[in-house]
């Protein structure tokens, strides 16, 4: 009972936060007339050493919508999202070929700074990874500190905003100065989401953000994704078919590093074009 109560509370809280976003709170300059945040993937191939993990992937991800990536383990879902913000190249021996156009510009062009790309395209990992020596608040604003130029009070304000946006504020507002590692797993994951949101990226990549979480935390993250798509382009990798069906507008089904089918979620789950997609979404696969 008590738990239910607190959950609705924080949902209401988040709804009002969203209003604040569009009115520009807290600093009055938050309204963004940004481009739509479309991503166009053209003939993308990715390798780990000699192992080719992505094969000629072509894809257009629509801005301000949720795109789910599904497929069996090892089919290259993580590799694909990591290619979208140039994290793939951080693995030793990893290599990328092809183009990823972000608002029309190739992020793999030689004059593009990966650091800049990663600021604009945020990422949440499968396993919660808050910085263990930093407090909850410091974790939330870690990315902002990198950008610099904000006073302590501004940082705190933005941190609070991000924690509210991630639906974590109510639970941590009295323990902002405790180490982030002391939160529960679900709270840590939402802290990581807050950390990614605080820098106001244009795109949020989520690699199985709920795979290590309980149903309640999973539900919160799904609600959060719904709210986020008003302002962000969200790409979410998931193993959970229901989750993909619930949260996404578009779904991509991959197999052995290749795109099998990409389309509106409702179509992909009810009238897929490809037999393999049908087998997979109905659980008859393999």
């Amino acid at each position: 009972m008590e738990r239910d109560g607190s959950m609705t509370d924080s949902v209401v809280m988040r709804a009002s936060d969203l209003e604040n976003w569009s009115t520009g709170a807290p600093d009055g300059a938050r309204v963004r007339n940004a481009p739509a945040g479309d991503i166009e993937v053209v003939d993308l191939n990715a390798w780990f050493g000699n192992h080719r993990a992505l094969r000629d992937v072509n894809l257009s991800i629509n801005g301000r919508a949720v795109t789910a990536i599904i497929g069996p383990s090892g089919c290259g879902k993580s590799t694909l999202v990591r290619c979208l913000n140039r994290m793939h190249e951080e693995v030793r021996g990893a290599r990328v070929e092809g183009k990823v156009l972000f608002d029309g510009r190739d992020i793999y062009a030689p004059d593009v700074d990966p650091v800049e790309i990663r600021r604009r395209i945020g990422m949440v990992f499968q396993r919660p990874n808050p910085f263990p020596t930093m407090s909850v608040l410091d974790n939330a604003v870690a990315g902002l500190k990198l950008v610099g130029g904000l006073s302590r009070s501004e940082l705190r304000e933005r941190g609070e905003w991000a924690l509210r946006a991630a639906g974590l504020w109510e639970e941590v507002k009295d323990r902002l100065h405790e180490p982030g590692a002391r939160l529960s797993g679900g709270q840590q994951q939402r802290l990581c989401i807050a950390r990614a949101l605080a820098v106001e990226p244009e795109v949020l990549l989520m690699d199985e953000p709920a795979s290590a979480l309980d149903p309640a935390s999973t539900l919160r993250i799904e609600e959060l994704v719904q709210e986020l798509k008003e302002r962000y382009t969200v790409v979410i990798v998931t193993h959970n078919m229901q989750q993909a069906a619930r949260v996404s507008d578009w779904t991509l089904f991959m197999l052995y590093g290749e795109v099998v089918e990409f389309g509106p979620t409702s179509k992909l789950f009810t009238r897929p074009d490809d037999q393999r997609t049908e087998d997979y979404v109905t659980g008859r696969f393999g």
Partner: protein
Amino acid sequence: MGASDAPIVEKAGAPARRRGRTRVGDAVFKGMTRIVAFGLVMLLVLMIGVLAADGVRPFREFGWRFLIGRNWNPVAGRQSFGALPFIYGTVVTSTIAIVLAVPVAVGLALLLNEVARGWLANIVAVLVDLLAAIPSVVFGLWGVFVLQPAMDRTIEPFLANTVGKVPLVGPLFRANVSGGFQGGDVFTAGVILAVMIVPIVTAVGREVVSTVPRDLREAALALGSTRFEMVRMAVLPYSRSGIVGASMLGLGRALGETIAVAMVVGNSLGIHVSLFNGGYTIPAVIANEFREASSEGLHKASLLALALILIAIALMFAALSRLLVRRSAALVSGGPAPPATELARLEGAA
């Protein structure tokens, strides 16, 4: 008896036999580790015992004044022994070594593990390891013939003209008591020690840095951090305790280093603010004087007492480092800070 029975019997028998063997193996292993552990402790106790048998005599004679005494005169008839110049020299040279070596070693470890990859990094790594293989007497020779002249002629005058003018730390970098920069001094000894301990601190530092989880590095990078910011944000905080441990290992070596220090430290008794004055360390005085020390009077006993003090200093630093490591380890794991009793125990040991 069918052929198919045999494997079944064997299958049933094997685990039991293996378990029996394991139990015997465990007992033997346990016994052996106990013997070795006990033997090591006995060795330490024996060593301290032998040292203490004679080493307590100066304390009996002079009391605490042995620790703070500034005179050391082994000439029969005018004997007088005080340990302070040696304690001072040992602590100061080691401290200089740590202050100079740790930033360099940590920088090297980060450079080799985080930034540079490929053949250049490999060459640097091999060179650093080679440094560890050079015998200390060779370092001493290099110190006497290369480093000390360079120090006397250029480096020390330069430091005196620059850092020497800064308030607070300035007095540490002034001309020595004879008004110049000639002769061996504690600063030169500290620099040699620093060069000698860089390899070990670097090697351990690299191990430490490589234990930082990839998750954390990627968390920092995905936020849009540069490589340097990633190191500051994810790598250094996580490896702080390990770096303290690595430094303490280096400090242990610096405290005990004898021959290279004896060759450049000046072997004089003074205690001065300026680091460009000669000094003396505990290992150096023991190595220099044990041959002439006779059992009559307190000379030999005082040298043994110095050895005891050296052990005490080393243990003190070890305890201090344990304390530091525990504190930051507790931070990293997010667990509670170490309980007060634990701190008290460690402080008691010191």
